[in-house]
């Protein structure tokens, strides 16, 4: 009788045991964050950088005498051709705050580089507004100059020997240096602490090559524009951005949760890029730069845009190779 009761209890407990449920789970394909168009990780440093022989790239062509009066360009010169066209075509950036950017409120392109380009237009026409901007990404600068699409590129362009083989440069108009931008409290203190971290730079920039050559071996992520780097930093897709302090200052100004860390670990002398054949225009632009260095125009433009970065900095001295 007791056995029977036990058996019944066993049967009862078996009957009450829950049946395994087959309710389906909800599967998600991926919660992958969106990336800026054509962002990509880069393997090693660009190969061509190593093959260039050393040179004195910052030495430019000496201005030939005093500047011609606006509206009276020497016949047959590049400047006369520009004057005949009625406007200077300048390759600039519209995505780098402080240097060359589109003012979201007015839609106008402004910045340190843009004001520099306007000075050239002013020297040719007597009017800084006789200028057409052609927005270029870092990697479009040299092709645009080689194909003659622009008269001049004023776009945080570092003078180096590799580029000097393809295009001509004015004298140095600003001396920048590469640093690192990271989120506050990220533990990143400079180029040495970037090992294995993702670091963003733009395609075709000298910064990209510099990042790839950092000894701690960061992972390089290449994008089209510097603001794309800030987007990826804010979305947690990269750990740091590394480029010239001028550009980083512009990014940091848009996001108080980021800060520039570490020392300048490279020297980045900025020059205006000019098609290699137009030597007369190089000399003309250098004349313009001589004038704005000495008459306080440079200091005014610098104070307006980069005053917070290096207050009271003097314009870099020009160096010529005749």
């Amino acid at each position, binding site marked *: 009788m007791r056995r029977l009761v036990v058996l019944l209890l066993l049967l009862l407990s078996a009957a009450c045991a829950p049946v395994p449920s087959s309710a389906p789970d909800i599967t998600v394909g991926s919660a992958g964050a*969106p990336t800026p*168009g054509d962002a990509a990780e880069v393997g090693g440093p660009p190969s061509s950088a190593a093959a260039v022989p050393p040179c004195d790239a910052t030495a430019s062509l000496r201005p030939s005498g005093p500047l011609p009066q606006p509206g009276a360009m020497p016949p047959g010169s590049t400047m006369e051709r520009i004057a005949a066209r009625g*406007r200077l075509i300048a390759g600039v950036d519209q995505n780098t*705050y402080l240097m060359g950017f589109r*003012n979201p*409120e007015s*839609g106008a392109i402004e910045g340190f580089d843009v004001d520099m380009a306007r000075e050239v237009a002013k020297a040719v026409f007597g009017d800084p507004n006789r200028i*057409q901007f052609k927005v270029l990404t870092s990697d479009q600068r040299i092709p645009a100059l080689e194909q003659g699409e622009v008269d001049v590129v004023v776009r945080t362009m570092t003078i180096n020997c590799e580029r000097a083989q393809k295009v001509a440069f004015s004298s140095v108009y600003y001396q920048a240096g590469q640093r690192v931008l990271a989120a506050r409290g990220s533990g990143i203190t400079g180029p040495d602490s970037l090992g294995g971290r993702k670091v963003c730079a733009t395609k075709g920039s000298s910064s990209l090559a510099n990042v790839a050559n950092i000894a701690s071996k960061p992972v390089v992520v290449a994008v089209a524009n510097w603001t794309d780097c800030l*987007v990826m930093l804010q979305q947690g897709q990269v750990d740091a951005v590394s480029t010239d302090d001028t550009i980083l200052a512009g990014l940091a100004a*848009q996001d108080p949760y980021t800060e520039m860390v570490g020392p300048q670990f490279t020297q980045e002398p900025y020059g205006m890029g000019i098609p290699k054949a137009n030597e007369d225009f190089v000399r003309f632009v250098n004349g313009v730069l001589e004038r704005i260095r000495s008459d306080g125009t440079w200091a005014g433009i610098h104070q307006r845009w980069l005053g917070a970065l290096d207050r009271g900095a003097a314009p870099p001295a020009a160096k010529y190779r005749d």
Partner: protein
Amino acid sequence: MRRKGTPMTAVVTAPTSRRVTGLVKSTPGRLSLIALLLVAVTVVVGALTAWSVQTRSAALEELANRSEPLSFAAQEVYRSMADADATAASAFLSGGVESPALRSRYEADIAKAAAALSTATGETSRSPEVGTALSTLAGQLPVYTGLVETARTHNRQGNPVGAAYLREASSLMRAQLLPAAQGLYRAETANVVRDQDSAGGGPWSELLLGLVALASLGFAQWYVTRRSNRVFNVGLVVATGLVLVSLLWVSIASAVVATTVSDSRENGSAQVDVLARARIATLTARGDETLTLVARGSGAAYEKRYGEVSGELGELLARGRSLATAPAVRDAVTSAEKNFQAWQEAHRRIREADDSGDYTTALGAAIGPDQGGAAVAFDNLDRDLVTAITQARTAFTGSVATARGALTGTVAVVALLALGAAAASVMGVWQRLKEYR
């Protein structure tokens, strides 16, 4: 009435096989078999015909209630998302805080995209291949709007990074959302065509079945006539008549369905498809035109695509006009073509101004509210296409409704006539069989 063959009683005690052989050999046995056969044939033919009509009717129902609404929903998903993207780019170009008009247009686009998407997600089982596209759309649309809002916040604070967020949003739209929406539209449109094919096919199986029933009845009539002096057996004649009525009914109804479904294609869905693609091309071209200006001098890739897409748009409009059957549709498409010309003209002026360095004039011609500007021509073109699509869609809905009306009650009629034919043939044969008692 003479008796023929062996009396049935002779085989009662025989083994089964001999009983069957005997049955078949005796006239009353054969008559009984024929009666059974006729019942089987008329009932089976009736059932198969009813089933076939039911299939046709179900395809029509699918067409009216599911595949066409889904294909329209897919088109709306694409259109509203593409319009949202073009509007966001225009708002960026206009500078400062976007105008209330552009903002509410963007919001309406997103709301419509979400509503159309929920319609499209309601039914997924038909085309399992759209599952991925739907989950991409449902998953990435909120991400897209998040990016646009981030861009907007930054723009309000004067941060140029806002433009980068907008670019990221736009590239998400172009790389993932729009291709998914296009895949969805293709799949749902293919369903429309499939339903039209299965609803509008010729009634060949019904005809064949009817002929089988008629042949069986004819054979029975011949047999019975041969064994009696009467030319006609009333029951069988009635049965034949009922089968004929059923066959005619089904044939006429199917012919009406085939014609109206073909109408729905010709006056409706074929035009809607071309016009919908024209509308998508319109939006793509507008997006490219705006982005060329956003890129400010380095938008050659966008300008190239504008050229390709607007060429395609011209062809689609010409095809839409030649396909148009209703005057209202043709008028709307003709007006669309005129507005397309005006837009092309405005675009030429935009490019001329921009290429000669006059960005402000180019911008004014692209997004300004003046007549003859690209924005006005684009809006008019889009409105014409909406009119034409609505008209063609109404024609489609009307045709499908007529087709469904033609099949009303057909299944019941076919079933009743089949049962009647079975009963009549049994009675006819029974009349003859009684004479052997």
